[in-house]
């Protein structure tokens, strides 16, 4: 029960406490907010009228706050951090608050302690009171009962002793009667009757009774022991006016017979008082005769006749016949009484006669007090003259007030804990704030350092690049001079190293740019297949040298033209393929470009990758592992990947059969300057920055890059990139590259070829390349099948393409069969070989034309050229791109009409002279304004070289004006307002404008591009740079002529 109470109380306290906490915190925050608000309103509005508004706001916030508290009690820490952390509190203020909190709760706990202990005290007191009162009442009741009976007995005596003559009562009758009725008087130990005897009657009385009246005061003075009591030894009473000798006595007090009651001091007073009042009268407690125990004697007067209640004392004295006394042995009697009550052990009872207030006479009980607490109950024994009281005390001291102590202590502990929490939180917050501040500073420092690093890199790279250009230019010039073979070799080596250095610096610049976030991708249309052809041709030399098969396959579903940054795409591919070719000694490198959707469809079909299924028949790393972690795919299985229609999601994989990446190095493969190991860079060179740049670039293209690699088997790098479809524009006919392709296509359109290849992957690549030229391809696995096909085929087969592998194996069979049964229209025979040296068929017999060798990697232009040669069609010389730049430049610039704009006469002349040397038709303009007037479309210029820094109108401004004019013109052309003038093929105007500038700072370059320029050349002209820039706009003259 009490435990339950304690628990309940605890819960209540806890609740109260929580509420207090909430209130406390909220008050706190509100104060903070209020302060802020007030400040704000003061600052912003500065009027008193707005204070009300602010208060409203505050109350609103308060409500919000309470809602929050009630809903998210658990979020308190983070929340308090948010709120308290945001408001800057004074630390000392916090400390004061904590102290106030502790003091407050200390007071509360003291109060609680006091309250509880007083409560317990009260309860104890009540218990004592009730117990004491109960005892007093009982004692009183019993006493009254006894008294009533004694009174009744007095009437009995008056009736039967004095009323009857002779008396009906003698000593024996009396004692017997009283003995038998003693249960009626539970508190009396005995009763006795004393008769009133006047002195005149003494002699007769003594004679009648046979004894003398004896005095008892001597007995009172020398109390004797019980056993030594001898009534005969007592002295006879001296002569008095009247006597009250005891004539009848109960057996228990039979020793008082013949004693004169008037001789005893107490008894005399008692007797006199009793006959005066006619009521029961009590003596003060005194030691009883013989027993010596404390006793009280109750005395009733026995009258001769029934007196009226208003009889005067004198009448009463007159009528007095005798006195009946009852002896109350208080000690034993009270003892007996208390024995009957429960819980007698718990309290001590004392009974006092307090008639004399200053000297209360103890009637019962010991004076040993343990407890302070005392209860006094008044006892009324029917005698108004005598006053008695009962004093009760607990036997034991009050128990320790454990409950109140525990409670208050608990409260204190909780309060201290909360204070501690608050304190800890505050110090934590300040600490976190400090840390945060520190970290911010560190972050700023780090960022500054990073920026400084990037700037340093950029600057240094730039500074290196500029003189490097000088070095390279000089080397180039040196090569033009007459040198012997050794010297030329040295120069070539020096130039190659210089170029490598420049490319490295470019890479570092790229990295710095990516890190500083300055790299932006272009959005131009480009031909993906063309780019792959380019990259392939870049590596073809090396692959042929190594005997590694290089192949590209681009899915049909990839649009021909895409919009994106071709340069960066190319950079990624070059990086990956460069790595592949560096680490691959045998086997193949296979680049696949697909749409992501296509890839998913294909995995649903077949997933098994057997070694036989790969390009070169060597096992490869599992490509699927390289992209299965891509975020775009892995979110909810493959199917969740839904490409948005205008975007083209390409997935490009570069698969090689190289040495693979060691497992321990795979984790840091994309970290800048991290290579597999130091030995790698020693054997293979490179800086290890390429992959990191590639990753960044892929990221910029909204794609992801991944790889899977098995050491000694090979690696597969896969990346995705998002481009826009470039096919939506209708003006594709004018695209020169496309033109080129179509030209090639037209020659082979409608032809049919049979490819003999037993490897499906390789056959697919061949198929793809022939398909691009418009040739229909049939793939068969064996030579016999090819021959069979040609025999039964309804259409003529123009060419047979045989894989070198098969040729080496089955050449004899083939030739024999061909000789045995020659076909009507003999198709041309081509051999697909990896390298020129190994491809010369030695087992070839005379009689048939030797097959023409197509050296892989297959590329559209190369393939077309070889086929043309083989089939003897389109005798057009393939455009020679390889040759000294000067020559090519001449090719490019011959007959071009070029405008040069420069305010500096000398520069103008020099530039004009340089371009004229390459055969260009040069027109000069001295100012931007003149240039604009010359370039107002329609005009016949093919390009414009423009100085940037010119008075009146600088190059940027002029270019902007020119672009504006062109745009206007284009609009008019589209609307059909303007006729398409003599340059018939021009449906849109965009004149290539190149900036001429002496400072080749990157910023200037970017500025150039921003203003609509197409590029820049440094002044004075350098042949190679000029070529690089010019070749972007002009195709070889043969193209434009045709």
């Amino acid at each position, binding site marked *: 029960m009490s435990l339950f109470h304690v628990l309940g109380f605890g819960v209540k306290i806890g609740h109260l406490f929580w509420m207090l906490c909430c209130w406390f915190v909220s008050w706190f925050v509100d104060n903070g907010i209020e302060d802020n608000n007030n400040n704000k309103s003061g600052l912003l509005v500065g009027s008193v009228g707005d204070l009300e508004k602010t208060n409203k706001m505050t109350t609103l916030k308060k409500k919000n706050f309470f809602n929050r508290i009630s809903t998210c009690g658990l979020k308190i820490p983070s929340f308090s951090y948010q709120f308290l952390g945001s408001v800057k509190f004074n630390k000392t203020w916090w400390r004061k608050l904590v102290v106030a909190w502790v003091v407050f709760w200390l007071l509360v706990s003291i109060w609680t302690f006091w309250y509880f202990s007083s409560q317990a005290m009260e309860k104890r007191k009540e218990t004592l009171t009730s117990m004491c009162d109960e005892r007093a009442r009982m004692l009183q009741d019993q006493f009254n009962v006894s008294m009533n009976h004694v009174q009744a007995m007095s009437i009995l005596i008056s009736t039967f002793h004095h009323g009857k003559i002779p008396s009906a009562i003698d000593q024996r009758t009396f004692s017997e009667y009283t003995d038998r009725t003693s249960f009626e008087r539970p508190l009396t130990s005995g009763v006795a009757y004393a008769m009133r005897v006047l002195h005149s009657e003494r002699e007769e009385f003594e004679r009648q009774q046979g004894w003398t009246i004896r005095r008892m005061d001597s007995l009172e003075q020398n109390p004797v022991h019980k056993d030594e009591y001898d009534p005969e030894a007592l002295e006879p009473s001296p002569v008095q006016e009247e006597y009250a000798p005891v004539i009848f006595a109960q057996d228990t007090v039979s020793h008082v017979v013949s004693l004169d009651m008037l001789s005893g001091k107490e008894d005399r007073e008692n007797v006199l008082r009793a006959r005066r009042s006619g009521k029961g009268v009590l003596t003060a407690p005194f030691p009883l005769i013989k027993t010596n125990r404390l006793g009280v004697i109750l005395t009733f007067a026995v009258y001769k006749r029934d007196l009226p209640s208003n009889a005067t004392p004198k009448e009463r004295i007159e009528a007095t016949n005798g006195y009946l006394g009852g002896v109350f042995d208080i000690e034993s009697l009270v003892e007996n009484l208390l024995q009957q009550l429960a819980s007698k052990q718990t309290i001590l009872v004392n009974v006092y006669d307090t008639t004399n207030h200053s000297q209360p006479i103890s009637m019962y009980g010991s004076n040993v007090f343990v407890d302070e607490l005392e209860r006094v109950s008044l006892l009324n024994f029917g005698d108004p003259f005598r006053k008695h009281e009962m004093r009760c005390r607990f036997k034991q001291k009050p128990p320790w007030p454990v409950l109140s102590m525990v409670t208050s202590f608990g409260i204190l502990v909780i309060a201290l804990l909360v204070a501690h929490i608050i304190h800890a939180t505050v110090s934590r917050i300040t600490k976190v704030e400090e840390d945060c501040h520190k970290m911010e500073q560190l972050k700023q420092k780090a960022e500054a350092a990073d920026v400084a690093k990037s700037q340093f890199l950029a600057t240094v790279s730039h500074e290196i690049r500029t003189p490097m250009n000088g070095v390279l230019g000089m080397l180039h010039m040196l090569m033009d*001079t007459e040198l012997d073979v050794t010297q030329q070799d040295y120069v070539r080596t020096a130039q190659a190293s210089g170029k490598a250095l420049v490319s490295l610096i470019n890479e570092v610049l790229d990295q710095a740019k990516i890190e500083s976030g300055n790299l932006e991708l272009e959005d131009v249309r480009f031909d993906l297949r063309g780019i792959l052809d380019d990259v392939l041709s870049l590596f073809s030399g090396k692959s042929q040298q190594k005997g590694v098969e290089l192949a590209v396959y681009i899915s049909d579903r990839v649009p021909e033209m895409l919009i994106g940054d071709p340069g960066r795409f190319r950079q990624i591919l070059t990086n990956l393929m460069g790595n592949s070719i560096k680490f691959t000694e045998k086997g193949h490198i296979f680049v696949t470009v697909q749409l992501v959707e296509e890839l998913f469809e294909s995995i649903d079909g077949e997933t098994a990758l057997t070694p036989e299924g790969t390009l070169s028949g060597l096992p490869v790393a599992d490509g699927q592992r390289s992209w299965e972690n891509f975020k775009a795919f892995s979110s909810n299985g493959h199917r969740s990947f839904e490409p948005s229609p205008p975007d083209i999601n390409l997935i490009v994989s570069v698969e090689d059969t190289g040495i693979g990446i060691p497992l321990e190095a795979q984790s840091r493969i994309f970290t800048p300057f991290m290579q597999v190991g130091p030995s790698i860079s020693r054997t293979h060179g490179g800086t290890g920055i390429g992959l990191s740049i590639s990753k960044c670039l892929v990221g910029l293209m909204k794609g992801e890059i991944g790889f899977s690699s098995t050491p000694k088997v090979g690696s597969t790098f896969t990346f995705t990139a998002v481009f826009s479809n470039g096919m939506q524009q209708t003006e594709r006919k004018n695209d020169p590259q496309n033109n080129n392709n179509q030209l090639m296509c037209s020659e082979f359109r409608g032809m049919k070829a049979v490819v003999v290849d037993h490897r499906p992957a390789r056959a697919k690549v061949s198929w793809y390349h022939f398909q691009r030229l418009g040739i229909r391809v049939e793939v068969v696995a064996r030579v016999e099948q090819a021959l069979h096909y040609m025999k039964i085929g309804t259409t003529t087969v123009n060419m047979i393409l045989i894989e070198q592998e098969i040729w080496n194996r089955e050449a004899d069979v083939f030739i024999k069969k061909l000789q045995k049964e020659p076909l009507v229209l003999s198709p041309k025979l081509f051999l697909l070989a990896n390298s020129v040296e190994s491809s010369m068929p030695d087992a070839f017999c005379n009689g048939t034309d030797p097959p023409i060798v197509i050296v892989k990697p297959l590329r559209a232009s190369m393939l077309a050229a070889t086929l043309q040669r083989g089939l003897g069609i389109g005798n057009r010389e393939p455009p020679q791109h390889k040759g000294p730049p000067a020559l090519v430049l001449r090719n490019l610039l011959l007959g071009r009409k070029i405008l040069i704009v420069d*305010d*500096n006469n*000398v520069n103008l*002349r020099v530039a004009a*002279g340089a371009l*004229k*040397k390459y055969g260009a038709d040069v027109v000069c303009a001295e100012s931007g304004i003149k240039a604009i007037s010359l370039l107002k479309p329609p005009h016949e210029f093919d390009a414009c070289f423009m100085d940037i820094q010119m008075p009146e109108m600088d190059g940027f401004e002029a270019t902007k004006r020119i672009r504006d004019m062109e745009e206007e013109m284009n609009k008019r052309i589209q609307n059909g307002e303007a006729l398409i003038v003599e340059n018939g093929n021009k449906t849109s105007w965009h004149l290539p404008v190149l900036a001429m500038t002496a400072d080749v700072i990157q910023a200037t370059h970017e500025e150039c591009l921003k203003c609509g320029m197409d590029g820049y050349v440094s002044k*004075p002209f350098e042949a190679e740079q000029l070529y690089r820039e010019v070749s972007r706009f002009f195709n070889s003259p043969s193209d434009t002529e045709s």
Partner: protein
Amino acid sequence: MNTIVVGQLQRQFQDYIVSLYQQGYLDNQFTELRKLQDEGSPDFVAEVVSLFFDDCAKVINDMSTSLERPDHVDFKQVDSGVHQLKGSSSSVGARRVKNVCIAFKECCDVQNREGCLRCLQQVDYEYKMLKTKLQDLFNLEQQILQAGGTIPQVSMN
């Protein structure tokens, strides 16, 4: 006889032009400029160089009037003149002139009038110096041509 004279002249020409390079009067660009001269434009170099010197005279004159104005110097105008000179000189390959121009431009940027005046004098001196040197060179060329020889290609190192 003639061939000996021609050879002598050619050697003289070669030595002279090399000394010009070595003394820093000319740089690579001058070589480039000479490369541009062919049958189509036989006097290309002389033409360009004389154009350059005319420009120099004019610009220097302009700048000196600007700089000698006592009250307010129009540094902007001076700057554009220096820029033009710098561009021209680098196009022609007049190295010393170009270097002075670079210093000149720095003075101009900080609006140091004294420095500008000093640079102006230097530029004036340098271009006149170059003018006489090139005049000598062209004379030598003419002599070679008159003697029936060809102008030798000069390899620069």
